[in-house]
């Protein structure tokens, strides 16, 4: 796997190294590159402590971890926690919540940047184009706590501007959008679209900007109107980008933003709000079930890796460059 992961330059350099390697003894190499190795040390320490120690810590998923007894002293219990996860009722809830959210985001939030980028691309007045871009990029830089805060302010039962507006149009009883389980998913999608759409256009706009203008000229010579230019030149030009982004997006299907979901979760909507990450926090940190929560996290992490590699493989099969 490690070879698959290595980017091309590394592979080349490793081959070069293999030819040279026998001639430079280890001690001499260390002495010769001592400053470089010294510079490598702090970063290496970071990766060992904060990335690889936690990977070792995953062993507690197979233990009944007691902090006092430590990693080596705690009792090994095999797959007990995984059995609890799959046999208990919670797995079904977590899986369906995750999948429903992922599907909704893929169907609604993923196409938005494509549509907006295509619309921006048709804008003829540059000042308007740049102004709109400047405005719609802003939410990308705001924290989820701010987005959640805005949501609570705008949708609250008492003073929420949007809640009141919907109430005055639709009528009926007042709805507590931010508390009710029914409204959890629509609000999450709304947040995702508001925060991510503008920023998401960048990659598509770049692809659109690189379309050869001669293609448009040729199409015009052939009598193609604006619609046919769009259909036969613009769309085919960004199709590879769309496919690649869709595949990369699928690789991160399970990685819904912990912060976004957690900030909107409450006692009323927990049944629809819980996904693997928020559940891990809930049972692990707030209830202290370290081993069980780690098992949940390990399951999610493993599926996540498989998804990433699967999607990367797919991207390469389709003739894309892929991520690695």
């Amino acid at each position: 796997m490690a070879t698959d992961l290595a980017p091309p330059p590394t592979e080349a350099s490793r081959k070069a190294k293999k030819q040279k390697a026998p001639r430079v003894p280890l001690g001499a190499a260390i002495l010769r590159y001592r400053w470089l190795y010294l510079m490598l040390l702090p970063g290496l320490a970071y990766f060992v402590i904060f990335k690889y120690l936690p990977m070792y810590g995953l062993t507690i998923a197979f233990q009944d971890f007691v902090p006092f007894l430590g990693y080596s002293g705690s009792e090994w219990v095999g797959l007990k926690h995984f059995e609890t996860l799959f046999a208990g009722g919670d797995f079904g809830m977590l899986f369906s919540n995750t999948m429903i959210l992922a599907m909704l985001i893929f169907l609604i939030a993923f196409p938005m940047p494509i549509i907006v980028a295509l619309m921006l691309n048709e804008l003829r007045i540059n000042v308007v184009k740049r102004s709109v871009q400047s405005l719609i990029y802003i939410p990308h830089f705001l924290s989820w706590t701010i987005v959640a805060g805005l949501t609570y302010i705008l949708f609250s039962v008492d003073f929420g501007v949007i809640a009141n507006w919907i109430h005055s149009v639709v009528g009926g009883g007042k709805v507590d959008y931010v508390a009710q389980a029914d409204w959890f998913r629509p609000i999450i999608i709304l947040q995702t679209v508001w925060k991510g759409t503008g920023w998401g256009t960048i990659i598509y706009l770049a692809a659109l900007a690189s379309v050869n203008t001669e293609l448009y000229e040729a199409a015009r010579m052939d009598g193609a109107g604006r619609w046919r230019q769009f259909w036969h030149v613009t769309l085919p030009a960004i199709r590879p980008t769309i496919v690649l982004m869709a595949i990369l997006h699928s690789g991160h299907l399970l990685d819904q933003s912990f912060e976004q979901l957690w900030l909107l979760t409450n006692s009323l909507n927990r049944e629809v709000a819980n996904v693997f990450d928020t559940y891990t926090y809930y049972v692990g940190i707030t209830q202290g079930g370290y081993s069980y929560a780690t098992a949940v996290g390990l399951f999610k992490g493993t599926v996540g890796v498989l998804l990433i590699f699967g999607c990367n493989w797919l991207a390469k099969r389709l003739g894309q460059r892929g991520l690695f």
Partner: protein
Amino acid sequence: MKQTFGSRVFDVVNTALLVGMGLITVLPLLYVLAGSFATESEIATRPFFLWPERFTTGVYEYIFATPTFVRALITTIFVTAVGTLVQLALTLVMAYPLAKKGLPGRGVVLNMIIFAMVFSGGMIPTYLVVRDLGLLDSYWALILPLAINPFYLIIVKSFFQELPEALEEAARIDGASELMVFWRIVLPLSKPVIATFALFYAVAIWNDYMSPLLYITDNTKWTLQVLVRQLTSPEAANALATVDSANFFPVEGIKFAVVVIATVPILCFYPFLQKHFAKGVMIGSVKE
């Protein structure tokens, strides 16, 4: 070229839709800004406004007189400043040797980094490591676990690889050590990249809510984002209102103001962010 009628209609509709979209994006922010300078009764009675009828700075006066808030603000500024420096230093110093293609062992380290990008120990094991290091309720817990972003590291490494070798060689021939070359030649050449990633890191720390949620339980050490959460979430705000029996407690106004205060620094840096981040996205999308 002559435009057809349909084409002109499309242009009008398209422009209107996009301008509308731009407005929808910023109107909530402008409303919250206006609301933070309005009275409680105006927030409660007026449906939507972009300019308060009675302009008041009462909420801000109240907030800046509250020790919890002032402490959170100072804490966040301090953690963001120190954190950005530490993270930037670690990233730059590690990226430089990794850019040297002849360095024995470089491939192993790179693979180690890339593996950590796709697989991680996850929330609980990382939490336990932080706890075992005695970092719970320490500001370092907000900085060190995120000290190096592997994506940024790889991008900086690629940038260092592109720097002209000749300058470095000249310095080496003059007897400079690798450390000197890095400090005197490489860093001065990398100012734009350093600025970009300083912004990347600063925004990430400023916006971070998960780290304080996980690692900070002492409420005297809350950061601004935790305070935003505490004050805007419905249950917490009501609880605060009953606890604080002061004569004046602007429950609604405070939500507005705290959102504004957490947003303003980001918006101040926004022109730079837009310029650099857009570039960053493009670099990030290019394979090494």
